[in-house]
């Protein structure tokens, strides 16, 4: 099979890494090779974070070539556009959480957060296939904003593009997450699936 390529974009502390890992472990369950490349700075939180996931195929390097990602999972609008413009293939699928995480430049008044319409218009030059929703709001509804990553996971699963089944994803979640959090995460996953259609 051709390698299926996902770019995950977000901010440190949003749980992007766990989402990448669950996608990778599901791939192994489905008998596929997998590679994840992570780029993150030194801080625990606050800095830009990017994950590259390649499922199937026989590539060696964990980095996806520019303009070749099939899907962008954006945990934060500005970060989604930052990575999407560079890595998403022409008319690839972009799933984007609209909840902003303001960087220190914005908080301390050095510059405003960029206009959302301008942000998405820019990404629109790469793809028309952009789905946006308040994933953090949905996660709060599920019980904790920390489950934003699982909302995003539900949404990508519902897109039907993943080279494995929803059942594989759900089983991977059940094995990979702490038992006391499964119920809340399953709720977040279901709400994420719905969010994919509410666009």
């Amino acid at each position: 099979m051709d390698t299926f390529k996902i770019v995950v974009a977000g901010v440190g502390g949003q749980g992007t890494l766990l989402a990448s890992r669950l996608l990778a472990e599901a791939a192994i369950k489905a008998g596929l090779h997998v590679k994840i490349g992570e780029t993150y700075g030194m801080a625990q939180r606050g800095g830009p974070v990017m994950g590259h996931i390649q499922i199937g195929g026989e590539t060696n390097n964990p980095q996806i070539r520019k303009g070749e990602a099939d899907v962008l999972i954006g945990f934060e609008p500005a970060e989604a556009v930052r990575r999407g413009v560079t890595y998403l293939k022409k008319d690839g699928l972009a799933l984007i959480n609209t909840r902003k995480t303001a960087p220190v430049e914005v908080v301390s008044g050095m510059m405003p957060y960029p206009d959302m319409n301008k942000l998405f218009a820019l990404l629109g030059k790469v793809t028309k296939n952009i789905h946006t929703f308040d994933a953090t709001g949905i996660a709060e509804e599920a019980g904790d904003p920390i489950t934003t990553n699982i909302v995003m996971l539900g949404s990508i699963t519902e897109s039907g593009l993943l080279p494995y089944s929803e059942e594989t994803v759900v089983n991977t979640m059940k094995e990979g997450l702490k038992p006391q959090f499964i119920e809340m995460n399953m709720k977040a996953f279901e709400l994420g699936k719905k969010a994919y259609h509410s666009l």
Partner: protein
Amino acid sequence: MSHPVALDRPGERVVLMGNEAIARGAIEGGITLAASYPGTPSSEIGNTLARVAKKLGFHFEWSANEKVALEVAYGASMVNQRVICPMKHVGVNVALDILNPITLRGVKGGLVVVSTDDPSQHSSRTEQDNRWMGKLNDVPIIEPSSPQEAKDLTKYALGLSEHVKLPVLIRTVTRLSHMRSDVELGEIEDLGRKPEFDWEGFSYRVAGFEKLFRRHKERHEKIDAVEAEFEKVPFNLVKNNGEKKGIIGVGFSFTYVKDALEALDVEDKVAWMKLLTPHPLPQKKVGEFIKGLDTLLVAEEVDPYVELHIKALAKDINPDLKILGRLDGTLPREGELSHELIDEKISDILGLPKKPQERAEIEAEKDELLFDRMLTMCAGCPHRSSLYALKQAVKAVKGDLMNVVVNGDIGCYGLAHAPPMAFEDTYFAMGASIGVSQGMQQMGVDTIAWIGDGTFLHAGIPALQNAVHNGANIKIVVADNAAVAMTGFQTNPQMGVTATGDKVDPIMIEDIAKASGVKHVEVVDPYDLDAAEAAFKRMLEAEGVAMVISRRECAMVAVRKMRPERPPVYAVDPEKCIGCKQCLNNYGCPALMWNEDERKASIDTTLCMGCDSCAQVCPVGAIGRRD
């Protein structure tokens, strides 16, 4: 879920990070001890080993620093145990003093040192290439190119070390340490060796310098034996069907080469070599490879280490060979490689057309529109509160913030330089804040050393005692968040718990300071801004070395402990808020937001952890608990 590195299921495929794969390789190789000091990008090796050490029955520790870690590891090696000692590349600088005699005296049980290098400095002060460290000390170096190889070759390195009686260096780069892929597990060896000192071996026993000098010759013979071994190892792969153009990819750099050949569909036009043993270079094998070529590209990170050695080799074997790489400027002298870079250079060598830059315009537009997202301390970080109070105290006592130089140190609190705090002027190396503060102060410039708890315990103690002993008048703030936070919450001696969870007596920094002769030592909670400011004032007014330990648990740890409960909810009362922006501009917690239309501040409850500091900063009492 138990960690996959502990699974005794040979043949099973699991997803492992490069660093986890190294840990698994050490486990498969039968280690009975591992000692490390955390540092990005190495930390997950130790984190993983810490998690499974008790279950698998080996000793793991986060040592006080890298030098101590290697000493502990060497001690166990001398009594015939297999050991691993992982650290970040600059950690090897700290450990070098003991690495050097180990190579002269030799090892008994296999000793593998892991250096995780950081090309392009994702999280380091330098991109130092530690292959020179191996060369400097005749330490064999192995550079895996994938997590699978990282596992397999760590196990192999333990055996090699034991066989040639030299420590072996596994060298990774950030991209490999932090990548994940499916890895096939192997057998876990249980060597069951009785620990005993080799009384007959004598090689590490006390000897005069003359005898040690003879060991230098012995060391050269050992490294020659390793070279002979590296000529034969199956993992240095060659594809050569008489092509005139050739590429050597060293370690992880090989992945860019292999993928480029496939993407450009030129596999049949280029000879290639995957070289995983940069030192000692298998000269026969490499010589054979370059003999028939007219052009050679050497892809490696980050210095032209192999390239330089091949230049020397080619002088005799193929003097007309055109060698392209980082020396002649074909590749940049600094930084990581990339797909774009290697694709382009291979295209150039083969005379293929240049790939057009497709999105240059949109990328330029993006740069115009987007912020960089500067790093900052987390919401509720106690360091931010400490800095706020310290600035107030300095203004009050010194008249102006510019009347004192703040020398910072390595850790999250090193972000003190970032706006809006912007209260840190230098930072260099673990523990250096205290020494440089002393030097400046004794020449007449007022200084504050700003150092974290973990860093103080790593390398701050000798500098503290030096300052007291030499009559310095420096002020030291220990930003004590009871966590080695930046690298992912490892333990340190003050925490009262070991890396594997055993309760022990904590070694408190205030006790060390008092025992070191510091007369003015105070401990304060930075979430009480007034109390912290008062303590800092007393410190600034005290004579001699004076210290305030500003102690409050890391906000991330605090929030984790609250779960599943959420922190107390804070809010801005829009009726009271006068839109002065003091909370944003002078305090700048990322949980604070500004509504431009209403000209009011507000609080992002998903980020706020309820520390109350901004409520204390607000001049009109507009911020408070909602309940």
